[in-house]
Structure formats: structure tokens, C-alpha cells
């Protein structure tokens, strides 16, 4: 395949960025999207130009590093996948592909397509844990039985990879799906009950301080989430928050 790529280039956080056109040929449908960018980069380097910076690591859809806003969609046109799992067979010869960073006030650009998602970390420093010492001298694991349905639901929420696609695809740049998933994981487990009140209040407070927008229930986040995290988690967080506020 031969393709035209329109890529956002921005030297650093304080520079003004712009879209730049590149053409690339001989793209195989078996390549992943990131492998296609590797090819582009090695061509650029060989020509003495600067390669395009983008985040990636595991390249199998689990670390949450890769981002990219491709043709107006977070992680591109395929459903239920991250950018590293997106394959070029989703595109056609002659396509023009627009590639931009995830845009949100709380995710400032570091360079080109890389954004700073450390706001997510700070939300978790505020309460994304169960306060238990790591000595291993706790009760036997089977002494805390967990209903299988709850365990599965909790696990589903916990599979969020922290990629930020929910924020990027939300018109308000809200982080509710991410925070909802984090709160839900603990809210569904007996171990998480003790601190439930403080946890949700602190995490939501930090989320607001980070400059994420509000949720207006458009649901774009759920559609673009590569891990299928459902809106149910936002509802659960809201219930937790309400209960906590009444108590609090």
C-alpha cells in the first residue's frame, strides 16, 4: 500500500506544533500501525531528518503506553484495540491518514505525538490503593471469600490500562471512565470497603484539580476504550461519591 500521513510535529512542550505531510510506500497489511511508523522513522533518519516521537513499549495492548489519535479516533478505527494492536489491514491503498496526539488540557504535549499522562498517576497517589502493609503477614487469602460475580466485575474494571483514550475521545476531556474503573475495582471487593469513603472523595478531588472536564454522559469514552470498560463504572463511582459525601 502507498499512504499519505499527516502527522502532528511539535518540538517540545513550549513550541507551536503543526501538521506535516509524509508519504510512505510498500506498507504491508500485516504490519501493525506502529511498525508502519517505524518504517517511516527509519526512512526519515536515513535522510537525516528527525523521526516522529510516539509512546509505545509492550506492543501487545497491555501496557497502555501507546496513544495516537488516528483519523479523529483514539487508537484509530478498529474497535477494542490499542494503537499497537491496530493493523494496516484496516487501511486501503492511497489512504490519507491523520495522526495527532491525545488532546486534553490535563495531558500536555511532551513532543510530537507524546503527551504527559502523569495526572492519572497523581489521582492514584490520592487514594488508588488499599492501605495494607506489604509484610505478607496478613490473613490467609482464602479467608476473604469473594463472590465470583463481584470478583469478575472487579477484575473487568481493573483491566483498564490507563491509556487515556477515554479522556481523548471525550468532548469535555473528562477522566470519569478511568477514575470510575479505579474506584470500582476496590468498591467491589470486601478488602476495599474500609477506606471506601476517603478513597472516592480524595480521588475525585484530585481528578478535578488536574483539570479534567466534567462528564455529560455522551458515552464516547466507552466506545473508544480499548479494554471495554463500561459506563456502569462511572455510575458506580457516582453512587460511591454520593454515599461518601452524605457520610463525609
Amino acid at each position, binding site marked *: 500500500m502507498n499512504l499519505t500521513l499527516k502527522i502532528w510535529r511539535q*518540538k*517540545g512542550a513550549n513550541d507551536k506544533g503543526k501538521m506535516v505531510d509524509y508519504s510512505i510506500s510498500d506498507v504491508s497489511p*500485516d*504490519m*501493525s500501525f*506502529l*511498525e508502519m511508523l*517505524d518504517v517511516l*522513522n527509519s526512512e526519515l*533518519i*536515513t535522510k537525516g531528518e*528527525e*523521526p516522529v516521537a510516539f509512546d*509505545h*513499549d*509492550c*506492543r*501487545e*495492548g*497491555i*501496557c*497502555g*503506553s501507546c496513544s495516537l489519535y488516528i483519523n479523529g479516533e483514539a487508537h484509530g478505527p478498529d474497535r*477494542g484495540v490499542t494503537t499497537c*494492536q491496530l*493493523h494496516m*489491514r484496516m487501511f486501503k491503498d492511497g489512504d490519507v491518514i491523520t495522526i495527532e496526539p491525545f488532546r486534553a488540557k490535563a495531558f500536555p504535549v*511532551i*513532543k510530537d505525538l507524546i503527551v504527559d*499522562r502523569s495526572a*492519572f*498517576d497523581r489521582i*492514584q*497517589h*490520592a487514594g488508588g*490503593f488499599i*492501605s*495494607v502493609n*506489604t*509484610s505478607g*503477614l*496478613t*490473613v490467609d*487469602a*482464602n479467608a*476473604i471469600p*469473594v*463472590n*465470583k460475580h463481584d*470478583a*469478575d466485575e*472487579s*477484575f473487568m474494571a*481493573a*483491566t483498564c*490500562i*490507563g491509556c487515556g483514550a477515554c479522556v481523548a475521545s471525550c468532548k469535555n476531556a473528562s477522566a470519569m471512565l478511568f477514575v470510575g474503573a479505579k474506584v470500582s*475495582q476496590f468498591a467491589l*471487593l470486601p*478488602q476495599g470497603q474500609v477506606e471506601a469513603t476517603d478513597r472516592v472523595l480524595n480521588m475525585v478531588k484530585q481528578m478535578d484539580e488536574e483539570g479534567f472536564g466534567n462528564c455529560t454522559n455522551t458515552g464516547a469514552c466507552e466506545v473508544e476504550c480499548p479494554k471495554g470498560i463500561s459506563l456502569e463504572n462511572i455510575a458506580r463511582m457516582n453512587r460511591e461519591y454520593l454515599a461518601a459525601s452524605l457520610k463525609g
Partner: protein
Amino acid sequence: MALDAKIPKGPLADKWTNHKNTIDLVNPANKRNIDIIVVGTGLAGGSAAATLAELGYNVKAFCFQDSPRRAHSIAAQGGINAAKNYQGDGDSTYRLFYDTVKGGDYRSREANVYRLAEVSANIIDQCVAQGVPFAREYGGLLDNRSFGGVLVSRTFYAAGQTGQQLLLGAYSAMNRQIGRGKITMYNRHEMLDVVKVDGKARGIIARDLVSGEIERHSAHAVVLGTGGYGNVFYLSTNAMGSNVTAAWKAHKRGAYFANPCYTQIHPTCIPVSGEHQSKLTLMSESLRNDGRIWVPKKKEDAEAIRAGKLKPTALAEQDRDYYLERRYPAFGNLVPRDVASRAAKERCDAGFGVNKTGEAVYLDFAAAFMRYGKEQAHVKGLDENDDALVKKLGQEIVKTKYGNLFQMYEKIVNQNPYETPMMIYPAVHYTMGGIWVDYNLQTTVPGLYAIGEANFSDHGANRLGASALMQGLADGYFVLPYTIGDYLSHDIRTGKIPTDTKEFEEAEKTVVDNINHLINNKGTHPVDYFHRRLGKIMWNKCGMARNAEDLKSAIHEISDLRAEFWKDVMVPGSADEFNEELAKAGRVADFLELGELFAKDALQREESAGGHFRDEYQTPEGEAMRRKEFQYVSAWEYKGEPKDAVLHKEELSYENIEVKERSYK
């Protein structure tokens, strides 16, 4: 220097307890005055950082990703072992110890492995208390599954995302300490050297990957939890950023590097599809619990399949060769990884491979769909003879167990594994070699520790499934936090370590010179060009099967390639900005040195053991042939060029286990 493993005296089962009772402790009030650097925040580094901070030390933690949560441990799929005997199938500390030593082909250290088995049960308790959502049975208790090389069901799991959940557990423990100000986290920082003062590790030189700034950080001790070096092969199941730099720089500063040639080749990975490929994807070995591995019995059939003229599903049962079940009736599809990998390669080399390049075998779930489906139909009171219904019910069960893996496969290969068997082939996965450590996990440099995949101690020549996660967490949560206290108890009056000394200056200069050289080189080829070439040499000559002649030529080729790299590499951009090519160049430069030592180590080891197979040393049936005279750890001392490295041997004695021919028949 004579290698002293510092294994405590006394009976095996009491060693760890006795050791903990007698080593020196640091008074809680004094811990506040002690700084520890932890490089790496995967399962090993993350759990260590959290625990050390909780004990009261000041921890500075480093990782090159933008968040600890993205460390490569996140990718581990299958599960984590623990001798809980929840299934009542006869498991015990001793049995886990025994399986692990045998699985490692009697090339691991007895005392370390016993301790690992001993603390394994605590890991599960700890993780559950932290809210790790392990798989549960309907009664609310924890579920288990089984992995290659064992006959009990002792693996705890969270669907096919166990590493993710365990890492998020360790990360949440870290978050709590970061929130309390006890851990200072340095994301997007790469450690580029260890600083020694008076022979002791007292700090590191790190580069801020965003600004390019070179930083000095001091501490009373330095812990490396920097993962494995499988990416020396270019293609592996590791994350793209996984590298050997931290371990290699430590080696250059005096830490011995042990068993560099011990690499695990994992049998169930998605085969290579073309030259563009940047990495390989693992299909968890837990799939072998339910999948049956086969190739066609007749070469004509294999050829027809390769040409696309015959569908695997059309091949009759009697025309299939379930070669693992045939050769190893006791363990069948669940033989250890080295055995399964070699058997797959043997069949493909003999012309029975099933993908275009002839380098793939089938992993077939058809039988599992029917087995589970029948059970479901029975439970639900439906018609057990309705094949279509049974298959569908069975597929649903398989989906709950391995759904994400099936999805991953379909995305990459573009075939539906529920309808046609998966194609798999062995790939480089895990490195059992690493920095040499004693029983306290201290390297040959005082004050420098290595944990998790970065050290060498527990796995021997092979690693059984679900044991790396166990080791990483055991080291980080339960071992290092005790043993490091013994060393630090002598440092309570030392005070802050200044960074404006000649040692820091010298180390910083080495780092800066190296970077400037790379940036100013202005050669003609990008870094990947060299990395790919290195990978080809490694796979062809130091891969699953090796021989003296190939290894000798590999040593020369790697050394030549290294010279070419330094002459001709092209690194664009500058040093004082975000520059991924520069970071990569530094990593590949280190791989080019490690690769040569790897080949040298493989050449020296004239035996086959576990994942290390020397063509010259095999039994008449083609199984690995161990040699008693090689029952030692090879620990290499740095002396400049890899070719000058000096070998030190740590003899391995087995006092509690009878060393037997490893058999899975």
C-alpha cells in the same frame, strides 16, 4: 575474588528463618536517615520500593516509562505459583522447591529456591489483601490452574492478565508511599551508570529522558530491578524498551554477570510474519492446559497445508501427530518449555511445519471445546449430543479462561482461533542469566543489589511457567527488605552521601562522553539496523540449539558488528532533548557487548541444560545431555572487552535433592 554465596548454615528448611533471626536490623528511627535507590519499578522493583518505604527508608525509584504501572511485568499472562495446596492435590513447599530445581535442570541454587517456595504462599495472601482480583471459584475461593513441568495445580491467575494485576497491586502499594512522600518517583528517567565510593555502590547517574539532563543521585545502597535482556535477540516477547543497560553498567563497575547464555525460549508464541516485525507476541503457556499440539503425520499433508490447499480442520485425527503426547506420555502437552520448544523445532526442521515459512505447529482447542461443552450441557440439562450446541457452550467456557489471548491472536494473525487451530512457534522470552547475587541478593559490589529477572539466582537453566512473577515479588516484598538491613545497619552514622565528589564527576563524564560520541557520530544507518543484525546472529548461532563452530563465528561477527556500529551509527537530534533514538543507541551499544559475552559463555558450557542446548551434547533420543563437571554457575568478571572477561565458578551442591536425569516421559 572468591565467590561466596553466603548460604546460611543449618537444615534447608530452617535456613531462612535462622538467617532472619541473626542478621542485623536497622532501628526504625535510623531508617529515616538512610536513602535507597531502586532502579526499576516492575514487580521486583515496585514491590521492593513500596516495602522499603513502608519500613521507613527514604526511597528514590526510577523507571524509563512514564509511569511505574507500565513496566514490562504488566505483560505477564499466565499466572503465579504458590505452594498453597488449596486443591489438596499434594502440593507442599518441598514439592514446589523440587519441581523448580528439577525444572531448572539442577543449575539453580538450592537454598534460594527453597526460600522462594517457602515464601510463595505469603505472596498470594499479600496480593489478595491489596485487592488483586484473582480468579475465583463459585464458592468465593481462589481458583488455580496448572503449568508446564508440574503435576499439581498451583498457579493463581487473573484471566490472561496476571502480571497486569500483580503489577497494579505493587504499584498501588507504591502509590500509597508516594502519597505519603516516602517514595520519590522519577519517571522517564534512565539509569546510565552506577557510582562507587570506596568500593561501595553509593549512587547512580541518570538521564531525564524528557529534558536530556544528566543527573547525579546518591544513596546508601542501590537496588537494580531492571528486568531481563531477551531483547539482545531483537525479536522477543519482551517490551520494546526492555534492555540490559543497567545490568551491564553494573557489570562494568564490578558486578559479575552470571550464566549470560541461559535464555528461555518459550514454545507458544505467534510465529514471525515478515521482515518488518518489531516484536513477538506470547500466547500464554496456560493454553497448553487445554490446547493439544500437533503437526501433520505425513509430509504431503504439511506441504498441502503450507500451500493453502488443505485446511487443518479437514485433516483426520489419525493423520495428526500429537508429538508431545506421543513422546512424553506422563506430561504430554504440559512438558516444560525447553522440551516443548525443542520438540516443535525438531518437527519443523524435519519438514512438518504448518505456516508459509514452515516454522509453526498447531495448538488446537477443538477437543477442549467439546469437553467443556459436554460438561456445561450436562450441568444445564441440555442435549449433550447436539455437537453444534456443545461446541458453542465449550467455546464460551474457553473464552472466559483465555478470551483476551484469543482476541490478541485474531488481531495479529487475522484468523479466528475459535474456528481454526492457532499457529505457534518458539520465541525468546526470558533470561535466566543475570547479575550474580549471593543469598542476600547482593552483587559482588557491596551495597549493590539485584532482584527479579535482573539477577540470576533461582531459575537455573530453565524456568518453569509462573515462577518469574513469584520470584520478582518474593525478592521485592519478602527477601530484600530483610537482607538489605544487614548491610545498612553499618550506615546509620554515615549521613547523606554528597554528589559533588570525584567519583560522581568521573561517572558522569563517562556517561556524557558516551552520549556525545553517539550524537556526533553522524553515520549512515539508524540504530535498529544494527540491532536487527545483532538479533539475527544471536538467533541463528546462539538460539535454541548451538554448537562450538557457530558460537566461535558469532563471537567474531558480534565484535565486528560492534566496531561497525561505533563507526557508522546515525543518531539524529541532540542530547538535550527528548530523543528516543539516542536512548535506543545506548541500549544497543550495551547489547552489542553483552551479546559477545553471551556467545562466549555458551561456548564455554560444553553441555546441554534446560533452555541451553548444545548440538554436540545430546542423548541418543535427542534429549539434553547434562554433564556433572558443569554443575556450576559461570560468573564473569569484566576486564575491558567481552573477550577478556574472566570466568569464576560457583559450584552447585545438591544436598536435599538427588540430581537425576530430567525426564518427563
